[in-house]
Every structure is written in C-alpha cells, then in structure tokens.
C-alpha cells in the first residue's frame, strides 16, 4: 500500500536532504512530498537536486499546519505520514507501521517509539515510547498523557475525511489537536518499536518546541475548545473537571521538569518562564515540596558552579 510522507520545510536547506533520504529508505512504496512553506533561501534549488521528490512551493507562508494541509492536497497514498525537516525516519519503519495498521482496519492511526537525538540528529540512548495500550485513547490524548510526535505517526487518509484538516491557527499544537479529533472517533494503535529520530529542541535553538511553555499554555487554552466535541459533551461535568485538572497537573509537571533539566545548563530565563507558567496553570501542584526541592537542587548547583568560577583566580597567561 502506498504511503505519502509529507515534509513541511521552512528555511532549512542544510537539514532537508537528510530527512528526505531517510524517508525514501523508510518504505518500499513511499511518495515523498516536500512542502516548501515560502522559504526565502535556496531550498528550491536543494530540492531540485533531490530525486523522486514531489516538490510543492507555497508562495504565501501558511505555517506548519497549513503546509501539511497543502501536502495532503497533493498526496495520493492511502496512508499519510509526516516528518519534520530536521528529524529522520528509520529504515523500513513505514512498511512496518503500515502492516500493523492494515491488520486493524478500524484503527485511525498508529504511533511508534521515538529515538531522541542531539542537535546533530545523532541518537542518544534515550527512546521515548508512547505510554498506554492500544484502543480507545481519546481521554488520554485529550489529557496530554500520551505524547505523540508527528514523525512517529502513520494515519489512514480516510480519517481526514471524517474529522477535517489541520487547524493553521494552532501553531505548534495543531498535531495534538488532530490526534485528539481522530482518537475521538477511532481507536488508536501504539507500538513500542522506534520508528524515527527526533532532534530534541534546546532552549533558543529556534525549533518550534523550544518555546515549550508557550505551547503548553496554548494547549491548555485550546482544550476548552476541544471540550465541544460530542464525546466530552456527553460526559459528566465531574469527568470534565477531572480532565482539566489532570491536564494542568501534567503540564505543570512537564514544565517544571524541563526547567530543572535546563537549569544546570544555564538556561535561567527558559527555566524561569517555564516554571512561572507551571505556577500559573496549577499553583498548588507546581509548588509541591518535591518539585521545589528538585528545582532548588539544580539551581543551587548552577549557582555554586558560577560562584566558584567567579572566586577562582583567573589563570595568568604564561610570560615569555
């Protein structure tokens, strides 16, 4: 069965060929569609040198979601996959996921494991496996307890005909919005096998997810709109309250964890803004003693290291 793999790209001609080559090795029958979202550099000439690629040039910048929609417009496969221009697909991974998805005709999409990688896309030992079991995952996805990376997902094309396209207004969380809408009407498959390499964003690396706090905040706000979905509407108000609370707690956890993680590397501003958003969303949860202790520990380590540097005599250059 044919898979259309859509790679939206914007001003990253140096990274794009790597993503495209990995995509072509990921399956036997893959249609690779590169959607150039009005790049202002030499992305067009780089794409011209790539073989077997459907190159679409959007002249008016649409954002990632809009570019994905344009890719969908020109796709001809029965299954759709997405890949960010800085990530990679593992060889044979598309064929593997499609075979699993075909065995479950009612499932909407399949999500696989993700190998986390550094800025040069060299995998570290960490693998993020989607938590949970296959089946009806609507509430889990809505609560953000199953975190899905677009590069690890293969979707049946019919799903878009049932729930609609990506929402270009939701920068950065349009994928989550889509998974939720699909999970509402169809079961979801989760599989631990790693299928893609994900370049983990660093604060200030210019990647979309480097503004994690803002994205998470937007997600919490957008969740109120997702509450208009029929399945949430028929749920009891207690259930809705629980979903809201769980989401806020989870987001607060993620943000404070990231803050503690980035503090030793000196990203004070990043950590502070993330933790302040966590505090705003769920004050009592974010300010629990355990959280504060972890934060304090990493902050004090960083401060200590700084003061040592400050106190230590600067080495004098050798004379002569």
């Amino acid at each position: 069965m044919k898979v259309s793999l859509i790679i939206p790209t914007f001003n990253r001609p140096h990274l794009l060929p790597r993503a495209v080559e990995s995509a072509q090795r990921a399956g036997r029958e893959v249609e690779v569609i590169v959607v150039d979202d009005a790049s202002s550099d030499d992305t067009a000439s780089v794409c011209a040198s790539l073989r077997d690629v459907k190159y679409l040039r959007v002249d008016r910048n649409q954002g990632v979601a809009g570019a994905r929609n344009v890719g969908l417009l020109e796709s001809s496969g029965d299954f759709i996959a997405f890949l960010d221009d800085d990530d990679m697909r593992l060889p044979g991974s598309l064929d593997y996921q499609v075979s699993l998805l075909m065995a479950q005709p009612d499932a909407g999409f399949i999500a696989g494991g993700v190998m986390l990688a550094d800025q040069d896309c060299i995998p570290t030992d960490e693998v993020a496996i989607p938590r949970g079991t296959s089946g009806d995952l609507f509430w889990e996805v809505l609560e953000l307890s199953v975190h899905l990376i677009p590069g690890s997902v293969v979707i049946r094309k019919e799903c878009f005909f049932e729930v609609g396209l990506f929402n270009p207004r939701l920068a950065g969380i349009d994928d989550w919005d889509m998974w939720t809408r699909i999970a509402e009407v169809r079961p979801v498959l989760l599989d631990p096998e790693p299928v893609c390499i994900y370049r983990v964003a660093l604060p200030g690396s210019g990647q979309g997810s480097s503004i994690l706090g803002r994205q998470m905040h937007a997600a919490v706000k957008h969740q109120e709109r997702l509450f208009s979905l029929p399945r949430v509407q028929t749920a009891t108000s207690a259930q809705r309250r629980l979903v809201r609370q769980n989401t806020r707690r989870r987001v607060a956890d993620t943000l404070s964890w990231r803050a503690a993680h980035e503090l030793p590397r000196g990203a004070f501003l990043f950590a502070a803004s993330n933790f302040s958003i966590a505090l705003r969303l769920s004050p009592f949860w974010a300010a629990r003693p355990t959280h504060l202790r972890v934060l304090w520990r990493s902050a004090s380590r960083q401060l200590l290291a700084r003061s040592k540097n400050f106190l230590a005599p600067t080495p004098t250059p050798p004379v002569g």
Partner: protein
Amino acid sequence: MSQVSVIIATRNRSSMLRRAVESVRHTNCSAEILIVDDASEDQTQQVCTNFSDVHYIRLKRGLGLGAARNIGLIASVSPYISFLDDDDQRIPGSLEAQVKLLEAQPEAGMIYGRALYGDDQGVTQGSYYPEHCQQGDLFWDLLRWNFIPCPTVVFRRECLTRVGLLEEEAPGVEDWDLWVRIAELYSVMAIDKAVAIWRQGTPGSGQFTSRETKLHREAHRLHVHKWLRLPRAIAAGTAQRRKISRDFAARASQQLLWTAASRLKAGRMLESARVALAGARMYPLSMSRNILSPHTLRSLSSSLETYWR
C-alpha cells in the same frame, strides 16, 4: 481522469441536493462530483447512496462550510475545481466552456461568470449578478468588495498549492478570501454569460440579518488583518491601502444602511437598530457620512413613515 472536480458541501438539504447534482451532470463535461456531507441529520445519506458516479464523503462531526470544502479539495483529483452549494445549480454546458477558456490562458488562475437569481424551486426570474464582468488583475477590486458569485467560479488546482487552502475560521467569507489570495498572484478571467443559478435566501427572518452583520464583521476582520497585509498590498504603499479601506468601508456601510432601512420598512425596529449599530461600530466615519447624505435621509424618513403607520 476527469477535468473538473465539482465540490458540493451540503448540510440538511437533501431535497435540493438532487437538483444540484443533476445540473452538474448536464454540463457536458467530464466532471467528478464530490458531495461532502457535513454531518447532516436528515436523509442526505440515503439520497446520496442512490446517486451513481458520485464521490460521497460523510463527516463524522459538523465542521462548517470551509472545513467541508477543504475536505472535498483533499479528496478531489482533477486539475480544475469548482464549488457548488447544495441549493445552487450549474447551467448546461457552462463548465466545459469555462474550462476551455481557462486552459487557453495559462497565466490566469480562475474564471468566473454571471449568476442568475433563482427562487426556492430553482426557477430564474431573469435578473443576474454581476452586471458587468471585469477581467484581468482584479486584486484591488476584490479588496473593495466581493462581486464574484461563488458557484460560478472554476479555478486551477495549482493555485491552492501556491496560496494555501480555504480559511476555515471565516464563516461566510471563506470564498472571498480565496479569490483575494488567488487574484494577488494570478489574473482573473470572466465569461460574459450566465453559468449558474443562485438561490436567494428569503430575507424575511431575523436570522438573516444577524447572519448578514456577522458576514460584514468577518469581512472587516479579514480586510484589516489579512488582506491588507498581503505582500502585494504592503508593497503598494500606505496611500493605496488607505484608499482601498476607505472604498471598502463606504461600500460596506452603504450596504448595512440599506439593510437597516429595509428592516425598518418591514417593521422590525430592533433588528434595524442592531444592524445600524454594528455598522457604526465597524465604520464610524463612513457610516456617519453615508447617513447624512440626502439620499439616505430621504429613504430613512420614508421608512420611518411606513413604520409609524
């Protein structure tokens, strides 16, 4: 492969749908018909399964017109695309003629034509819109007001890859938005013939006016925040942009005033005031200028007279 994809988005109008589909079949053109059923609650599904050669897509959730059309676009395959509403009709032979003209002009992105006004039964009275079909670079004209009837348009699929799909969160003016974006990059063609029949809503209900104010509000929002920020509008300079928004405001406020007057004549004081207020809030300057013109004053006084009587 078929030449044109005709996308019919429908919701709860199974009685009129058949007429729309039949009208496309009579256009002598290898047309692919896509019906996107926006989660109708009536017999639309049964009606559609009876059609042959129709690609029927049923959405599981009601998503609105823009989203339904976008889904139709994704599912379609032809190089030319036309939107048809479920209550409108195509005139025999029209699609073929339009596609032929568009094929001959590779730099044009879309072609439109005249629409005949029809009543609920789809019977025309001979009046049509627009009076005169302009051609060529229509970017600035489309920024003033929308004179292109949606069911008369045939556009190239490749336009969409360059300008993006329909905006879903602009209910009622998503077509206008697309024409503006296409006209920014392409020239627009026109055929001086009637190509579609346009059913006119009955403006008897309060729902109609509230919808009209909503449309104006959406158009105003897009005009300020999107269209005037398109690269071509920005490159044209402040003076040109100011002139265009003045024209836009004059046109819109005139229309709102006209609606307010007609509501007043129908004896609906509250609705009329609501429309006038909405207009005053959006275009305070041109609204006050319009309201003080002798023509408006005269018609307002006559409306008031009928109202008091």
